[in-house]
């Protein structure tokens, strides 16, 4: 009889403990009722891609010297550089240049190693098409610039964490024009000079 009673006692104790810990956990869950949602409602709100964001590649035809470094550093030798040697000016003449963005992985090696900076990364990331051949951009398509998120009146631009002011953890809390964390080097120089003067 005592054994049974102690069993009941243990069981009740366990149940109370379990209820306590579950309540503790639920407190965390219910605490979220007073927090703002962190999701971005995509077509209406968009994140501003970071400054170093590696989106579709932009190409300037006139700057290119057809050196083909972009082809050599590309993991799959993707850029197609079509050039012809012009004996009169003793230079390579670029005829056409194309990158197939259906195959490109946007690693940015070509941009990093391009000696004349004729390649650059844009912030364009929505490249979907109905036909994959449309993703093969020639030098004309590569020269187009994407629209900016901040210029679109239909869209509320939001910044990513690294561009928010100090202490702000989510983009909804502040306007995107508010100053981001960190000083400018100019300001650090000014304050250092003021200190040395005084």
């Amino acid at each position, binding site marked *: 009889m005592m054994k049974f009673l102690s069993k009941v006692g243990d069981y009740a104790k366990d149940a109370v403990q379990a209820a306590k810990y579950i309540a503790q956990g639920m*407190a965390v869950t219910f605490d979220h009722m007073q927090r703002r949602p962190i999701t971005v409602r995509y077509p209406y709100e968009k994140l501003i891609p970071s400054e*170093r964001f590696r989106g579709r590649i932009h190409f300037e035809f006139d700057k290119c010297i057809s050196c083909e470094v972009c082809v050599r550093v590309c993991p799959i030798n993707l850029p197609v550089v079509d050039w012809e040697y012009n004996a009169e000016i003793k230079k390579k003449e670029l005829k056409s240049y194309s990158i197939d963005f259906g195959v490109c992985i946007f690693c940015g090696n070509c941009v990093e190693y391009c000696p004349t900076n004729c390649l650059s990364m844009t912030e364009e990331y929505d490249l979907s098409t109905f036909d994959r051949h449309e993703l093969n951009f020639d030098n004309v398509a590569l020269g187009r610039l994407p629209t900016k998120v901040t210029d679109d009146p239909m869209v509320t631009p939001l910044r990513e964490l690294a561009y928010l002011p100090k202490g702000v953890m989510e983009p909804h809390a502040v306007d995107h024009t508010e100053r981001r*964390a*960190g000083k400018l080097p100019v300001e650090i120089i000014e304050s250092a000079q003021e200190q040395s003067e005084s």
Partner: protein
Amino acid sequence: MEKIAENRTIIQYLPYVTRWDYLATMFTEAITVNAPEKLADVPVPRRASYIRMIMLELSRIASHLLWLGTFIADIGAQTPFFYVFREREMIYDLFEAATGMRMMHNYFRIGGVAADLPYGWLDKCEDYCHYQLEKVDEYEKLITNNPIFRKRVEGVGKITREEAINWGLSGPMLRASGVKWDLRKVDHYELYDELDWELQWATEGDCLARYFVRVREMRESCKMVLQAIKQIPGGSYENLEAQRVLGGPKSEWNSIDYQFISKKPSPTFKVPNGEHYVRVEAPKGELGVYLIGENSVFPWRWKIRPPGFINLQVLPQLVRGMKIADIMAILGSVDIIMGEVDR
């Protein structure tokens, strides 16, 4: 992946490696540059090493966070999954600002990193670490003492100290079985010795112990990042630039220790003659590369030792005599990524 490496230069191969372990991407890049770096004796500036450490530890937090989410989701609790994604997103925002992409960074280079940190990045990184420390407490409150969770993981998937060593396990799997083995302490790579941190371990060897080791490692990593932010030579990039302007062309701030890369690797960087094995402590365990070079632009052999693959081998023994439902808990606690198991 190993065969692809044999006809790519290191620079060409770097964008590939983030696909081995796509949740701890910085570690795969670190080992890919460390291997030829050590073989060719390329120096790494102290600042670059600090940037690397910050990135690696953030990546470790991201990996453990996602592990936590999926592990708990496997056991049956969906809520923490969304919480960890919220925090992981912040790490990826930081990565995107510094490297240009959220997961496929292509940031590490032979002799340093691809670019210095953006303006204000260290400030936000510090913000994040304080925030994350708070959040880890919150997860613990939610999960650790939950009776259902405890019943599912306590004493399940036990592995003893000897077994763990004999199976060649590494990382939290090994540390949860009572072996104090962390390559950051053992190999002294990068500048981990300059940070004050403790190795996290447990002795029970069951799923719960592995959970504890990983959660504590998250806290430890946050603290390491905070220390690295304070100690980084030159401080934030904006400060470094200002000091360079103030100091003029011959200032000490232009010396090698304050650079983010020692020398930009040329597209024809040659892997020198010789062979060696290099390893780092990835969140899942020991990630190593056995590299054989023959003084050509391509490595002759590039053997990857992925932690996930070797940790997975112990699974048949762990599940013997267990219930079907326990398989999810055990497999979850092993923390495998199929990308590196079948690399």
